[in-house]
């Protein structure tokens, strides 16, 4: 899969100095032309990735607020933004919420995703079509999905409570999005729903790569069902699993649309994560300095997982 892209293309590469090696000038020109192909992308990456990260780090050390936009002044304040953020009463809440949201979403998406991927590996009529329709939740705009779920989860008239009440599963309507006790659970459920298609797709393609002979050989030795899963499927799927999990974490850490759409971080900050907190500080309170501090903390956490990802994919290539 994509990890293979990291291997060097040397064997199939175009030599830069084809034709006339004696002509130094032509060779230099050839190199310049080659860099022109890459130049726009490099400029873009510098302007829209490298610069924002650097700028964000700097803003974390500055008193960057509404006043800055009028006066152009953003005084250096050292670590005071970080002190404000970390000692604030909200910080432990957002940290715990981010951890719960991430772990809950990933576990749910992965377990259901793997179960569905294993299920769809069987051959049955319409299997392929049904599996590709499963992708639909993944392609809808997240904010459109948030809108539907907000209506489904509505306390008084939402279809979920209506159905559960009708079936006598619950004694009274559950305030899914308006009670601090269940709002995080509700948001996690929606995020699991969103993540399942991605997990199914990647895990399914990983399963397809396991040679069928392995299962045939194993069944001769009496390994079928759970034993086959444990001794053949799982070990062979391990590298794909690590990629899915790490990407899932990195992706979940930055989720903003769903939480803002469903609860806006509330009620009483029950669904406030590092990402939504950073948004609120910067774009609602216009305190860009502390907003940058929070997003820098977020980026460090993401970066740690990115390093794990790169380490895992390198190891996959080596294997």
């Amino acid at each position: 899969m994509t990890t293979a892209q990291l291997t060097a293309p040397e064997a199939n590469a175009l030599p830069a100095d084809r034709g006339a090696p004696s002509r130094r000038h032509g060779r230099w020109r050839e190199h310049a032309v080659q860099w022109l192909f890459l130049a726009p992308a490099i400029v873009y990456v510098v302007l829209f990735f490298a610069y924002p990260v650097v700028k964000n780090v700097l803003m974390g050390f500055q008193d960057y607020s509404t006043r800055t936009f009028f006066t152009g002044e953003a005084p250096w304040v050292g670590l005071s933004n970080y002190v404000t953020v970390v000692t604030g009463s909200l910080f432990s809440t957002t940290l715990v919420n981010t951890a719960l949201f991430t772990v809950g979403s990933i576990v749910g998406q992965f377990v259901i995703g793997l179960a569905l991927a294993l299920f769809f590996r069987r051959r049955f009529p319409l299997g392929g079509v049904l599996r590709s329709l499963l992708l639909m939740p993944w392609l809808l705009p997240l904010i459109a999905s948030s809108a539907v779920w907000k209506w489904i989860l509505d306390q008084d008239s939402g279809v979920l409570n209506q159905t559960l009440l009708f079936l006598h599963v619950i004694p009274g309507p559950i305030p899914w999005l308006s009670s601090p006790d269940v709002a995080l659970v509700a948001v996690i459920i929606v995020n699991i729903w969103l993540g399942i298609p991605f997990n199914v797709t990647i895990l399914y393609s990983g399963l397809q790569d396991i040679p069928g002979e392995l299962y045939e050989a194993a069944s001769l030795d009496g390994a079928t069902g759970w034993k086959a899963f444990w001794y053949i499927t799982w070990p062979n799927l391990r590298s794909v699993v690590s990629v899915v999990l790490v990407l899932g974490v990195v992706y979940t850490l930055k989720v903003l649309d769903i939480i803002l759409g469903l609860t806006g971080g509330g009620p009483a900050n029950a669904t406030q994560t590092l990402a939504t907190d950073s948004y609120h500080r910067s774009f609602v309170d216009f305190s860009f300095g502390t907003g940058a501090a929070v997003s820098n903390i977020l980026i460090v956490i993401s970066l740690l997982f990115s390093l794990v990802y790169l380490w895992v994919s390198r190891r996959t290539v080596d294997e």
Partner: protein
Amino acid sequence: MNSRLRGLPYTVLAIVFLAIMIFPVYWMLNASFQQGGSAVSSSFIPTDFTLDGYATALSQQSGNLGTSLAVSLGTVVVSLAIAAPAAYALAKFRMRWVGVVLFALLTAQMIPGIVIANALYTVYTDVHLLNSIPGLILADASASIPFAILVLRAFMLSIPTSLIEAARVDGAGQFRAFVSIVLPISRNSIITAALFSFLFTWSDFIFALTLTTSNAVRPVTLGIYGYLSGNVQSWGPVMATAVLASIPAIVLLIIAQRYIAAGALGGAVKS
């Protein structure tokens, strides 16, 4: 025949799973044809069928839908123009730093959008790109360019070098060879990259939310958010807007299924 029949229970089970998974999509469609509000729940089928929701949605959101379309198409063009030559260079030129550039692209995809938005807001204020379509196009391309480069490069690696060399021997310059040989061969992967650039941008929420401050330029995702942040009195127009915003995704999933499937796997890098 016999073996097909034996598979049928699995088909039934698969339909049940699928029904649960896409129930919210059905509910969106169903509720868009009903009044539905804080005191009235939607029924399971639209018995009081009405197009009022769509009438309201179109009167309030058609400008926003147009904005979304302009920004998405613009992002596709910008992303492909930047990504295709870069993908070719990274796949076929014997250059130093290829590993470094690929590493940078993989890492770039991990950077949370809020980090980019935070910094871009201050820059955009200075260079007057807030509330502008070009400003949104450039910001939205940050989601699609690394993805497009990786997907296109993965395909271009497989183009036989001899094919390009033959064209070069015939006197075609590096650029001519790229345009007349490489791009046509890469057609399918270019379509995949374009489709996903479009879908990423069409769904974009974070840049729309942070890089616009007025009603002048408002993608439809913000239109939906506008409904959600207030107290929703009538869900019909909200669901109708959500349906309209979901049309590109649903249409592309149906007519361009194989490109979507290809991109979903390339998306292992994306998200």
